[in-house]
């Protein structure tokens, strides 16, 4: 697609629509899912199956007053929720949903998304710092150290994939995995490259995606039993709403990336099934991953800050580095 103004506007509108819709209904799905896990129905009053709950919640949040605490850094306080939401939306522009549905096919798609994702950490820092609340400051410091610790193994695993494909273009990465489940990169003996450790890389990437999006068991930033609500303690109204939506939009991006890099994107698991449009496969895959993320959240307790850093520096980084070396070696041999 050409990069004209009209196209950009359309793409961004669709991206915002998709992100907002996902954010709203993932909250619903999460609450229903949590309810099922805990043997209770979850929200079921408003509308059939409680489907009107998210819009009503949105209306409630919008109707509330945005209170800026005394002594807060106003500019940063207002900028932070916007910063949490904006990069998530921009990332959607470069994410391909099938071989035809993509807003703008960037050559460095992977890199762009990681660049945007790093902004998320800054928004948490801004939010925590500007709201002049001790809990919020502690939470934002945690969030930043967590972001630094987890971007490294995440990028190293991405480099592994980039090494294999030789491109940073997301479309081409998916093209390289075409032809069924045994060609996807999470499969231990991906055709053409017999690397048994790719499943481990997939797991590492998934764990890092959890940590990057501040999801349980790595939700140290908003550890509600310790830091009250973490960085958004002081936020009410739509400021809180934007953080919330940003979190869910980030989950969608994380699962999209996992799908594109390791699960073959829109490729059908068996070539026989390729009559079903690619976008359907893609959506099935990302929602399966999101369901897993929700499932994990309602099962595990939270890690500690040092447990989290230990996991990253002592386990994830060495293992991902080892796999990078192994892949490089295998590429030379095969």
């Amino acid at each position, binding site marked *: 697609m050409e990069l004209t103004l009209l196209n950009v506007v359309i793409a961004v509108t669709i991206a915002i629509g998709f992100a907002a819709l996902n954010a709203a209904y993932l909250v619903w799905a999460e609450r229903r899912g*949590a309810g099922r*896990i*805990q*043997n*209770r129905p979850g929200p079921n009053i408003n509308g059939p199956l409680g489907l009107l709950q998210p819009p009503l919640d949105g209306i409630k949040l919008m109707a509330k007053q945005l209170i800026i605490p005394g002594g807060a850094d106003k500019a940063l306080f207002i900028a932070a929720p916007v910063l949490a939401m904006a990069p998530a939306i921009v990332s959607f522009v470069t994410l391909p949903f099938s071989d035809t549905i993509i807003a703008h096919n960037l050559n460095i798609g992977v890199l762009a998304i990681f660049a945007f994702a790093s902004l998320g950490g800054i928004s948490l820092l801004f939010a925590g710092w500007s709201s002049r609340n*001790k*809990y919020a400051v*502690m939470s934002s*410091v*945690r969030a930043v150290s967590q972001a630094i610790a987890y971007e490294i193994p995440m990028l190293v695993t991405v480099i592994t994939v980039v090494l294999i494909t030789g491109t940073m273009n997301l479309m081409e990465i998916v093209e390289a995995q075409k032809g069924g489940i045994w060609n996807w990169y999470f499969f231990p003996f991906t055709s053409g490259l017999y690397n048994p450790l790719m499943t481990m890389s997939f797991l590492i990437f998934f764990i890092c995606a959890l940590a990057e999006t501040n999801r*349980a*068991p790595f*939700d*140290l930033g908003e*550890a*509600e*039993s*310790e830091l*009250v609500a973490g960085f958004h303690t002081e936020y009410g109204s739509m400021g809180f709403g934007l953080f919330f939506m940003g979190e869910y939009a980030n989950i969608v991006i994380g699962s999209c990336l996992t799908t594109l890099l390791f699960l073959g994107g829109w490729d059908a698991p068996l070539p026989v099934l390729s009559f079903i449009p690619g976008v359907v496969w893609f959506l099935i895959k990302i929602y399966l991953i999101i369901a897993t993320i929700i499932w994990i959240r*309602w*099962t*595990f*307790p*939270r*890690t*500690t*800050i*040092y*447990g989290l850093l230990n996991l990253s520096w002592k386990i994830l980084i060495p293992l991902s580095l080892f796999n990078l070396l192994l892949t490089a070696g295998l590429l030379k041999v095969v």
Partner: protein
Amino acid sequence: MSVPIRLQPDETFILNVGPQHPATHGVLRVKMEMDGEYIVSAETVIGYIHRMHEKMGEIKTYPQFYMNLSRMDYLGALGYSHGHVLLIEKAAGIEVPERAEYIRAITVELNRIASHLFWFGAFVMDLGGFSPLMYALQDREYILDMLERITGSRLTYSYYRFGGLYNDIDDQFIESVKKFIPRMRKSLKKYHKLVTGNIIFRKRLEGNAILSKETCRKYGASSAVARGSGINYDVRRNEPYSVYPEFNFDIPVYHECDSMARYKVRMDEIEQSLRIIEQGIAKLPDGPIMPKKAPKIIKPPKGDYYQAVETARGNFGIRLVSDGTKNPYRLKLRSPTYSNMHLFDETCTGLLIMDALAFMGSLDLVIPEIDR
């Protein structure tokens, strides 16, 4: 922005945890001096829910004050009532029928399980896991329904009377208890699979907040806090009361001294309570539940009386100084969590805030019981 900010490396700040904070489970306030996320010193501030139970004990007659005991600890109310009735029976010389004592033991142990289940759920929620709370509450609900059927209330039971019980139990209650025991054993297995074995949970609790034997002794800690530090002390065994000597049960003791040990002690206690209930149901004698000549007006003779019981939260002591009138001269309540909580100030120095709050969860604090 021309003035450079001077960094002070030894700068600390004060963090007020509570009185309204999700981790304190009530109106407890902890004033923490923090160095980043590390606690330099902490001071627990209590008294936000002080209701003058001891003073009320002096101005009310014995049967009137009895109702207050259930309000001290809303999770394990029966244990506290038990202590009070045992004390007054001892003081006034009232004979208790055996059936009544057995029913008391059964209901106290059921209540202990309910209390431990709630603690288990709340503790895991302190650590960030939400679902175990809901599973624990399901089992607890079963116990509360059983107790509600026979006592008429779900939390503040007021079931015992001086000399016996208010109501007898029926066959339906016995049936439901018999059904409950295997159900609880199954649930325990589930909890161990879901929580105890979990690597995140273990990493958080193993080695967290080491409490030495000496510290426990110094502060008079009891219950799982002391037993998790290797002190084999349980009032049911060391100062036997009621019909506990008739039962065959173990006192779980762990020597690791960390939060995991305290957790394990409580989980094992659920199993031991189940054993006691099983034996109690099997041995339950027939007979009256109130003595034939229960005195209408309680007037213990002049003197000094003391009774300790093992409640869900530990060694609950109650001391009565009687001057021979209808009201006590002085009634002192020694609440176990009061002693257990004061360990917190000393032990949490140097811990991260999240470890300290996990430690606080492992103490099983019930704030109304501390403040009385």
